[in-house]
C-alpha cells in the first residue's frame, strides 16, 4: 500500500457520559490530526448523546503496565490488609463507625 493509502494514526477515545462521572475508554479511531481525531470520535462514539466530554489520546502516548509483570508490579499491596477497614476490631455496641 502506498503512503497515501493509509488510515492515519490510531487515537484512543474516552467519553464522559455526564458531568461528575469519570471518562471511560470507548475504543479507538483513526485520524491524522487532533481536530480530525475529535470529530471522528464524536461521529463514531456519540451518535446518541452518549457523552458530554470527549478525550482523544494518540495510542503511542499511552504507557501501559504489562500483564507479565502483574505479579511483581501489583503484589506490594497484597500483604497490606491494614489498608482495609475490615482489618480493625471495633468495640461491641459501637454504632455508625
Amino acid at each position, binding site marked *: *500500500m502506498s*503512503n*497515501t*493509502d*493509509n*488510515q*492515519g494514526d*490510531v487515537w484512543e477515545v474516552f467519553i464522559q457520559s455526564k458531568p461528575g462521572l469519570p471518562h471511560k475508554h*470507548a*475504543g*479507538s*479511531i*483513526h*485520524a*491524522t*490530526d487532533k481536530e*480530525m481525531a475529535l470529530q471522528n470520535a464524536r*461521529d*463514531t*462514539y456519540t*451518535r*446518541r448523546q452518549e457523552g458530554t466530554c470527549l478525550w482523544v489520546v494518540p495510542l503511542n502516548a499511552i504507557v*501501559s503496565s*504489562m*500483564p*507479565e509483570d502483574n505479579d511483581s508490579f501489583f503484589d506490594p499491596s497484597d500483604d497490606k490488609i491494614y489498608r482495609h477497614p475490615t482489618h480493625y476490631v471495633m468495640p461491641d455496641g459501637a454504632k455508625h463507625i
Partner: protein
Amino acid sequence: MEDIKKLEEFQAKIDAEIKIEPKDWMPEDYRKHLQRQISQHAHSEVIGMQPEGNWISRAPSLRAKVVLLAKIQDEAGHGQYLYSAAETLGKSRDEYIEELQTEKAKYSSIFNYPTLTWADMGAVGWLVDGAAIVNQVSLQRTSYGPYSRAMVRICKEESFHQRQGYEIMAHMANGTPEQKAMAQDALNRFWWPSIMMFGPHDSDSPNTGNAVKWKIKRETNDELRQKFIDKTVQQAEVIGLTIPDPDLKWNEEKGHYDFGEMDWEEFWRVVKGNGPCNKQRLNHHKKAHQDGAWVREAALAYAAKQKEKQLVA
C-alpha cells in the same frame, strides 16, 4: 512451539470466564481465529451499507429517508468499532482492508444479494439485522475483551435496525394487494439467505471446535439459527406474511420449530464469489477507497504542516 504451561493458564482463564485482553499471552491460533472472525465481521458491516445505500435516494418519504440514513450510518460505526477491536490483535486497519480488497478476507454472503424493491429495506432490517442480532447478543459474552465490548455497544444500537425493518414490512403487508405482494416477495427472497447467515451445520463447520473451547463462540451455528427461526415465525404471522418453507412446523416435543433443508450449493457458490452481486460490492468498495485518496493526501499534508508550525513556534 508454544509453552504448555502458558496454554494451560490461558485455558484456565477462559474456563473461569476471565476475559483475554490485547497484551495478554494467547495461542497463535486464538489470535488468528479472532483476526479472521472480527475483520470478517467488520467487513460485513461496511459492505452491508451498499444494498441499503441503494435506496436512500428513492426512499418513499422523508421520514423513511432519515431513518435509513441513520441506520446506514450506524453500520459504518459498527465497522469502525470492529476494526478498532481487530487492530488490537496486532494487524493494522490497512492490512485488513487490503485483505478484503484482494479477496483474502470474506464478508457475510447475505450482502451479495440485490435489493430490488423498497420492501427489501423492510426484509433486510427485519431478517438480516434480526439474524445479526441473535449472533451478536451471543457474542457479547465472547472471551476476547475488545470484541465483547464492541458487541455490547453494537447490540444497543441494533434493535432500532430490526424494528424499523419490521415496521416497513408491517406497513406494506397492510397496504394495497400490490404492496402486500411486494412484501411477501421480499420475504421469499431473503428468508433462506438470512437463515444461512448462521453458517453451515455444526457437523460441517470446521472452525467450531476451538472457537467453542476458547469461548470465542458461545453458541453454535445451529443453536443460533434455531433461536432466530423460533422468534421470527410469530412475527411473520402477526403481519400476515408466509415464510416460504413448506416444512416449517412447530415441534411440541422439542419446543422448537422444525424447518426445511437449506440449499448449501447456493451457499457455497455465493461464498466463493459467484453470488449475484459479489463483483459489484467489491468494485464499489475499491472505487470509494480510490476516490477518497485525495482526502487522505490532503489530511496528511495538513498534519505535516501543523507539525512544522509546532516545531517553529
